[in-house]
C-alpha cells in the first residue's frame, strides 16, 4: 500500500505542475502580435459554420476525405481555391457561398499558410526521435 501522505504529496505536485504549465502556455502563446484582419477572422467563423474541418485538415488535423489545406494558398493560389469554393466537387457540395464569404475563406487560408509548412518532407528527423521544422 502507498501511504496516504505520499498519495497527497504526489497528487498535489501533479496538480500544481499542471496548473502552472497551463497558465504558462496561456500567457506565452507561440505566436505573439496575432491580430488578424477582419476578413480572415470572418473566414475562421465561416470555416467552423460550414464545418470544413470534417473533410479537410490543417497541419494534419481534421478530416480525411479532402486534402490538407494548410499551404494550399501558396501552392495553388486564390483563383484555384475560389473555383472549388464556387462550384464544389464530385464529393464536396456547392455551399452556394457569396463573394464576401469566398473572399473571407481565402483570407483565412492565407493567414494559415503564413504560419508555416505542414509538408512532412520539410521536417528534419533526428536520431533521438525528435524533429525540426
Amino acid at each position, binding site marked *: *500500500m502507498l501511504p496516504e501522505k505520499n498519495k497527497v504529496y504526489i497528487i498535489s505536485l501533479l496538480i500544481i505542475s*499542471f496548473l502552472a504549465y497551463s497558465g504558462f502556455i*496561456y500567457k506565452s502563446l507561440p505566436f505573439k502580435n496575432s491580430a488578424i484582419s477582419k476578413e480572415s477572422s470572418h473566414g475562421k467563423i465561416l470555416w467552423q459554420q*460550414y464545418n470544413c474541418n470534417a473533410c479537410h485538415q490543417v497541419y494534419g488535423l481534421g478530416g480525411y*476525405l479532402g486534402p490538407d489545406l494548410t499551404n494550399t494558398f501558396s501552392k495553388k493560389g486564390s483563383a484555384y481555391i475560389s473555383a472549388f469554393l464556387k462550384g464544389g466537387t464530385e464529393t464536396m457540395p456547392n455551399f452556394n457561398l457569396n463573394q464576401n464569404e469566398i473572399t473571407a475563406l481565402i483570407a483565412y487560408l492565407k493567414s494559415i499558410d503564413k504560419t*508555416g509548412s505542414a509538408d512532412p518532407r520539410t521536417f528534419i*528527423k533526428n536520431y533521438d*526521435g*525528435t*524533429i525540426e521544422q
Partner: protein
Amino acid sequence: MVRSNNKELSTSKLFIIAGLFLLATGMIWGITGGLQYILPGFLKRQLSFEKVRPLHVSSVVFWIILSAVGGVSTYIQQHTGKKLYSNKLIKAQFIIFIISIFIILCSYILGKFGGREYWEFHPILALPIIIAWILFLINVVKSIGTLKNQPVYIWMWLTGVIFFLFTFLESYLWLFPYFRNNVVNDMTIQWKSYGSMVGSWNMLIYGSSIFLMDKISNTKTYSHSRIAFLLYFTGLFNLMFNWGHHIYTLPTHGFVKHISYAVSMTELFILGRIIYLWKDSLTTAKKNFHQTSYRFLMAADIWIFLTLVLAIAMSIPAINVYTHGTHITVAHTMGATIGINSFLLLAIAFDILKDTCRNFEPYKKRFNTGYWIVNGSLLLFWISLICAGVIKAKWQLSNSQIPFSSMMLTLKPYFIVFFISGVIMMIGFFLIIYPLVINQLLCYSKRNSTEQIDASYHTTVTLQNK
C-alpha cells in the same frame, strides 16, 4: 458491498440504455460515412459528409460519456452501500443531457454548426452540458465524502469528473479573440484540451473497470495496492502532459513537444507490465471466460496492448511525421474507442443491466456469435485502416506526388474492406446490445403494467369497501 435493486430502472441504468441507443445510431452514421468514401457524392445533397461525420463522432462520444456516467453513478452506490447524494440531481443531469444531445444531433442534420472538431455544435449548446456536468460533480463529491483510505477507482472517478469539466471549459477558450486570432495558438490550446479530455473520460471508464474486476474476483487487494496507485499516477501524468503528441507538426513551442515526447515514454512502463502479466492474465481469463462482463474485459486487454504499441510508436516525433494526417491515426482512434472504451463500457453495461426480471440465457448463443463477430471484424477494420495509412504516408513523402484525388482512388480497395468489416461489426454489436436493451425495457413495461393492475385492483377494493 450493497447491490442496487436490479429490477428497478434507475436513472443510472437509463444513462447506459441511452448510451447504447447512441452507440447504435453512431454506428449507422459511421456506415453512411464509410459509404461516402467508396461512393463519392453519395447523399451529397441531403446528408453530405460534413454532416455525417459529426453525427457519427458526437453519437459515439456521447455513448462513451453517458455510459461512463451510468457506470460511475451505479458503482459509487455499490461501493458506499448508500444511495447517491441526490437522486434529483442525477435525474436533472439526465434530462439536460438527453435534451441537449437531441438538439445537437438535429442541428447537425440541419447543417447548423459553429463549433470545432468533435464539438461541432453551436457554442451555446455547450452551456447545458457544463451545467449537467457540474450537477454530476456535486453528486460524485458528496456521495464519496472522503478520500482517506479509498481504493484507486475512487481517485480515478474524481479525477475524471474534475478534469472533464476543466478540459471542456478549456476547449471553449477559442471564444476569446486572444486565443483564436492565430491558427497555431488556437490549435495548441484546442489539442491541449482534447488530449487531456480523452484522458479524463478514460479515468472514469478504467476506474469502473477496476471496480468490476474487484467485484468479479471478490477481493479489493488490487484497488488498494501500491502498483494500482503507481499506474494511476502514471496515467494522470500522461493526461496532464502528453497531449503535445497530437501537434508535433504544428509550429508551436518546442518544449511542448519535448515534454510530451518524454512523458509519453512513461507509457512503456504500462506496456511492460501488460507483457509481464500476460501469462497470469491468460490463466485468469480461462477461469472467468464464462462471464459475459469478463469476456469484454479480456478483449479490451488485447486491444489495450495493440493500441498502446501503436500509440507509443506515434508518440515518437520522427515516426509521427510519417503517420500524422494518415489513416494510421484513425486506426489508433478506432482501436481505442471501440476496442478499449466500448468493450470496457459493454463489460460494465452487462454487469449492471444483465440481471433483470427476464432471463438472459435464451440470448447467450446470440451473444457469443456477436462477440466473435465484433472482435474479428474489428481486427480487419483496424488492419485496413493501417494499410490505407501506410499508402497515404508514402504519398505524403513522395517527391513526385500524384493529385490527392488519384491517391484516394488507390486507397479504395482498403476503404471497401473497411466498409464491409464496419457493417459486419455493426451487426455483431447489434446482436450483443439488443438483449441488454430489450430485457430492460420489457421488464420495465411488465412491472408498470403489474403496478397498474395492482393500482386499479386497490381502487376497486377501496370503492367497494366505501
